[in-house]
């Protein structure tokens, strides 16, 4: 279902979701032409991250993991400096120091990305503690996948967050359905004995809820409530968003397994081919969102295509900017080990 927002706001979400989608598709294509290192794409999870994170405000902090491109785009980061960072150029948000695994934009509320699974959890909880102790009403959002809950850091940090009633929102995007390492029919995954991830949080007394990752209304609604709870001193919330892992994410390196997204499939089912038909019909949250917006009259198919064109242009401009950007000077490899000292 659609979030409870004005049509203009819904259209903004749509455009962001398309930007996030095209960003990843261009990246995968680029990787086919040249070696850009290992990266992870957010395809298939836009319907969770975009509606949830777009409602965060200036000063709210978010700590994410290796699957971070969609998260940054959700909070307004630009394709150009993002691509530049992924490609190690001087114009990247981190001037090439971090790459995709450590994308950070303090301006957009992403102080650091940790790519040690669960690395971001204590950081997010601590940021929540810092904000609380400073008397701020800003919140700290912890963005993890289901795998991170296997680590001891989850247990320790969730306990602390609960005991201290910290202003933290844990958004766990569980994309383990049909993931590598999972045998068919097992859920959440074959390396987690708990069958309900929300119980791993509720056992500490943390408000916990599971949502369908394709339900943009649920993502927006639960996040709104969680942020409100955090801002008003009500403590942490755990949201588990359950999604199906995009087929292109099953190999170790992402592939355009379902082809480049054709938005017209949202209104013209005859375009859907048998292979990956289920994905296109039922599991692609972007197509699902477009269908809902069409049904509600918020957009027309022409408008959707227009947004797609604009989003695609923005993404391609960003990529061209990045590819044209210089590499950093070699000596920069030694800079920013330390912050400048006062003495």
């Amino acid at each position, binding site marked *: 279902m659609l979030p409870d927002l004005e049509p203009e706001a819904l259209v903004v979400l749509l455009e962001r979701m398309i930007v996030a989608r095209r960003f990843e598709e261009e990246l995968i294509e680029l990787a086919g032409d040249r*070696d*850009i*290192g*290992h990266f992870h794409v957010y395809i298939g999870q836009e319907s969770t991250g975009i509606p949830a994170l777009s409602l965060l405000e200036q000063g709210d902090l978010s700590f994410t993991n290796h699957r971070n491109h969609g998260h940054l785009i959700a909070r307004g980061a630009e394709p150009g400096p993002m691509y530049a960072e992924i*490609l*190690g*150029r001087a114009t*990247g948000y*981190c001037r*090439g*120091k*971090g*790459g*995709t*695994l*450590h994308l950070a934009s303090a301006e957009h509320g992403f102080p650091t990305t*940790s*790519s*040690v*699974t*669960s*690395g971001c959890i204590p950081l997010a909880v601590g940021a929540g503690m810092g904000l609380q102790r400073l008397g701020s009403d800003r919140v700290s959002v912890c963005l993890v996948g289901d*795998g*991170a809950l*296997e*680590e*001891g*850091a989850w247990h320790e940090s969730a306990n602390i967050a609960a005991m201290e009633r910290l202003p933290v929102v844990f958004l766990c995007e569980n994309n383990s359905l049909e993931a*590598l*390492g999972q045998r068919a029919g097992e859920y959440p995954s*074959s*390396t*987690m004995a708990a069958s309900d991830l929300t119980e791993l949080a509720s056992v500490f007394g943390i408000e916990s809820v599971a949502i369908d990752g394709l339900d943009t209304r649920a993502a927006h609604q639960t996040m709104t409530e969680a942020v409100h709870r955090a801002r008003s001193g009500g403590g942490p919330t755990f949201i588990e968003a359950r999604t199906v892992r995009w087929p292109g994410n099953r190999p*170790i390196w992402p592939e355009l397994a379902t082809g480049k997204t054709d938005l017209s499939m949202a209104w013209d089912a005859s375009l859907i081919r048998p292979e990956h038909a289920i994905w296109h019909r039922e599991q692609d949250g972007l197509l699902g969102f477009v269908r809902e917006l069409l049904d509600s009259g918020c957009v027309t198919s022409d408008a959707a295509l227009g947004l797609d064109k604009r989003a695609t242009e923005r993404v391609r401009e960003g990529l061209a900017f990045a590819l044209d950007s210089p*590499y*950093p000077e*070699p000596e*920069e*490899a*030694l800079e920013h*080990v330390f912050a400048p000292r006062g003495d």
Partner: protein
Amino acid sequence: MTKTIRYIDAISSVLRQELERDDDVFILGEDVSYGGPFGATAGLSASFGPTRVIDTPISEGAVMGLAVGAALSGRRPIVEVMFADFVTLAMDQLVNHAAKIRYMTDGQLSVPMTIRVQGGVGGGFGAQHSQSLEAWFLHVPGLKVVAPSSVKDAAGLLVAAIRDDDPVVYLEHRGLYWTKGLGASDETPTPIGTAAVVRSGSDVTVVAVSRMVGVAVSAAEKLAEDDIDVEVLDLRSVAPIDWATVDESVRRTRRLVVVHEAVVTGGLGAELVAGVHATAFEALISPAVRVGAPWAPVPASPFLECLYAPDTDDVIAAVLKTLHER
């Protein structure tokens, strides 16, 4: 009859061989039944089943501790740590338990486990996936540490590690996985604690480890064109260090360069130079030079990453320094 294989194949072969040879041997780690991210364990699950090749959750601390416990109960576990940097999540179990139990129990118990760790620079993986941490492991009494650079040693040292009754950290460099060499025709272990002279020379000793051995050899070949005769030692065993071989070489050449990919400060090179200095002080006719990464995390940008790790030119410059300084 030996044939040419890749470094990673040598590892896979030995794992298979040891699983066959000894029912107590078993493998555990993340995604090992799928071969792991680089394929080292590919096919083993199909042959030996889920009780000998165990996929673990993403729980390095628990898994390391589990392996220690299994070793104490009589099994012979091989733990795969996907990236060296993740060993940090298991440090307490490795340092406070695996390394210490034999000692604390006055020898009543031993911990026969192998910890395979993949690490090093390459692929633009960035600061949390590219570290070389041999200095940490060398610093922990009770751990043996090996770092093969050749295909043959990849096999021989792995056999030795698995059959050793103490915890052995086996350091793999992903930049070496695809290098080719002659595989061994038999299952002879390479003794832990022995270095190898990979190139004889008389003017300067270059001690190198892991991926830097190849870099040192390339540097030696270039220097030979200018009639500078470099001896390259592949350390192979980081703990214990083969001081006899290092010492003998330095006493002969009277000059020392040490090269490793890890950060220089507090690195393996510090131990090598300090040790040589203590025992072969009079032999050295110029200061020893250490070559390693600068004091900075590993940058992600492939351009910066290339410049970060030492290369042939760095080794050449270091050798020339030992020749020109007194």
